[in-house]
C-alpha cells in the first residue's frame, strides 16, 4: 500500500497560505498606496479650498476691482477638483480590496457642491460670464446606464475642452446620499440618469453630441 504522503498536503497548505497571504498583502499595499495618494491629494485640495474660501470672503469685503482675480482663482480651483475627480474614478476601477474610496468620493462630491455655492456667489457678485454645467450620474448604475454615462462623461469632457473657462463642469453622483446633492436633484427634478443641466435651467437627458450641447451656449 502506498502510504498517504500527509506531509505533501501540509506543505501544499503552507505554501498556499504563504502565497495567498503574500498576494493579499501585496494587493492591500498597492491599493492602500492609492488610497493614501487620494487622501494626500484630498488634504491638499482641502487646503486649496480653505484658501479659495478665505479669498472669496476677503473679496466680498473688497470692491469689484478684484473680481477678475477671484474668478480666475475660482476657475483654477474648479479645474483642479475636476481633474482629481477623474483620477479618483481611475483608481476606483482598479481597486478590489479596499472600499475606502467610497468615503473619498463622498468627500469630493461634498467639496464640489461647496465649490458650486462659492462659484455661484462670485458669479452673482462679479457678474462672471461662466456657466454651470451639472452632470448628474449614478455611482452604481446598471449595465447599459454605465456605458451611457461613460459616453456622456466623455462628451462633457470634450465640451469643457471646447469652452474652457466659459463653463464650470460639476459631475455629481446622485446616489451617494449627500443632502445637498439630493436638494439639487429635487430642484432640477432629475428622474433619469445621466442628466445634464446647462445654465441651471436647461435639462438634457440621454446622449447628445458636443455640437448639440454647444448650441446652448
Amino acid at each position, binding site marked *: *500500500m*502506498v502510504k498517504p*504522503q500527509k506531509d505533501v498536503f501540509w506543505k501544499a497548505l503552507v505554501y498556499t497560505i504563504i502565497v495567498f497571504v503574500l498576494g493579499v498583502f*501585496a494587493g492591500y499595499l498597492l491599493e492602500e498606496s492609492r488610497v493614501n495618494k487620494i487622501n494626500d491629494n484630498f488634504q491638499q485640495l482641502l487646503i486649496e479650498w480653505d484658501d479659495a474660501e478665505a479669498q472669496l470672503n476677503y473679496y466680498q469685503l473688497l470692491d469689484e476691482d478684484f473680481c477678475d482675480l477671484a474668478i480666475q482663482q475660482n476657475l483654477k480651483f474648479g479645474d483642479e477638483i475636476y481633474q482629481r475627480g477623474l483620477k479618483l474614478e*481611475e483608481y476606483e476601477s*482598479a481597486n478590489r480590496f479596499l472600499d475606502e474610496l467610497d468615503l473619498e468620493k463622498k468627500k469630493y462630491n461634498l467639496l464640489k457642491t461647496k465649490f458650486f455655492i462659492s462659484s455661484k456667489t462670485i458669479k452673482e457678485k462679479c457678474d462672471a460670464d461662466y456657466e454651470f454645467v451639472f452632470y448628474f450620474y449614478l455611482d452604481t448604475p446598471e449595465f447599459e446606464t454605465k*456605458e451611457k454615462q461613460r459616453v456622456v462623461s466623455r462628451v462633457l469632457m470634450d465640451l469643457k475642452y471646447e469652452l474652457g473657462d466659459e463653463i464650470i463642469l460639476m459631475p455629481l453622483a446622485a446616489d451617494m446620499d449627500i443632502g445637498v446633492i439630493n436638494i439639487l436633484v429635487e430642484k432640477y427634478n432629475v428622474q433619469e440618469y445621466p442628466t445634464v443641466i446647462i445654465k441651471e435651467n436647461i435639462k438634457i437627458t440621454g*446622449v*447628445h453630441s458636443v455640437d448639440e450641447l454647444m448650441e446652448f451656449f
Partner: protein
Amino acid sequence: MESRVATVFPKISVLIPAWNEEKTISKTIRAVLDSDYPRDKLELIVINDKSADNTLEEMKKFKDEVTIIDNEENLGKAGSLNKAIKLATSDIIAVVDADSYPNKESIKQMVAYFEEEGVGAVTSAILVKNREKRLEKLQAVEYAIIAWTRKLLQFIEGIYVTPGPLSMYKKEAMLLDGGFDTKNLTEDIEMTWKVLKYGYKVRIDLNSKVYCSSPKTLRVWWKQRLRWNLGGLQTMIKYRRLIFNPKYGMMGLFVVPFFITTFFLSLLGLSVFFYILFKKIFQSYFMTKYSYIAESSFLRADALNLNANVFALFATLLIFFGILYLIYSQKYVEGKKIGVRDIPLFALYLLIYLTLYPFVLVHSMWRFIVTKKFEW
C-alpha cells in the same frame, strides 16, 4: 533527470493490440524487436482485432518472432489485451500501441523501476512522431508538458494514467478485478486507477521515450479528446467512492479529488471566460451605440487605465510561471534548445490550443449525459 539501471532482466511480454493498423504495425513490431533488451527475455504478442485491412498480413511478416492472436470477432482494445494477458508467460507485461515506436533503450530503462518495492506500473515519456502540421507541432508541445507534469506528480504518488503508447505493469496487478475494463473508453486510465487503488506505486521514466502518431486534423483531434474525457468521466464515476478515503492512500486523497477538481475547474473557467466575454461584447455594443449617437470616437486614450488591479497582476504572474513551466518541460523532456523561433508556437499553444480544452469538456459532458453506450 532521474535514471535507473536494471540489475536484473526479468522476462517481459510485450502486447501490441491492433485494429486497422496496416500502415504502422510493422514499424511498431520492428521498433520493439530492435530494443536493446535481451532478446531471449522478450516475448512479443500481437493481436489483430478483426481488422478490415491488411494488418494481419503485416503481422505475419514477423511470424517467426512474434505470437499472433487473430480475433474472430472485434473485442476492442481492452478485450484484446485481456485475451493476450492470459497467454503471456511473463510477470511483467508491456503494452504498446500499434502506432507507437519505443526507443531502443526504453524497455530496459523502464524495467529498472520494478526493482523498487511496491511498483505496479511504469510509464514512459510519450512524444509526438509526426510534426509537420501546426496541429501536430502543438500536440508535440502538449505531450512534453504532460510528460513533465507526470514526472512531478510522481513525487506525490499522483500519476493517474499510464498511457497506451508504452506502459509496463506487473501481471498480478493487471489481473486484479479481471484485467482491463472493456466498457471503459480509456482503459489505460482505468487500469492505472485500479493499480493505485490496490496500493501499487506508479512510476514514469522520462528517459524512456515512445513516439506515437498524433491526430492530423482538428476533427480527429476533437474525437480523440472526446474519448479521453468520456473515459475519464467513466473512470471518475467508477471510483467515486474512493474520494478522500485515506484507506486508498494518495489515490483517495489526491488522484480522485485532483481529477474531479480539474474537471469542475475547467467548467468554472469556461463559465467565467464566457461571462467576461459577453460582458465585454455588451459593453462594446452599448459603448459603440452611444458613441455613435454622441458622434464621439469609440476608442480614446483616456480609456486606457494603467492602474492594474491586483487580480490582473496576479494573472500576469500566473502567465509568467505558465510560460516558465512550458519552457522547462520542452527543455527537459524533449531536450530542446528553446529559441525565439519557438515563441509563435508557444503563444499559439497558450492562447488558442489550451482554450479548446474546456469546449471539448463541455461536449464530453453533454455526450456523457445523452449517450447510453460508449464506443471508440
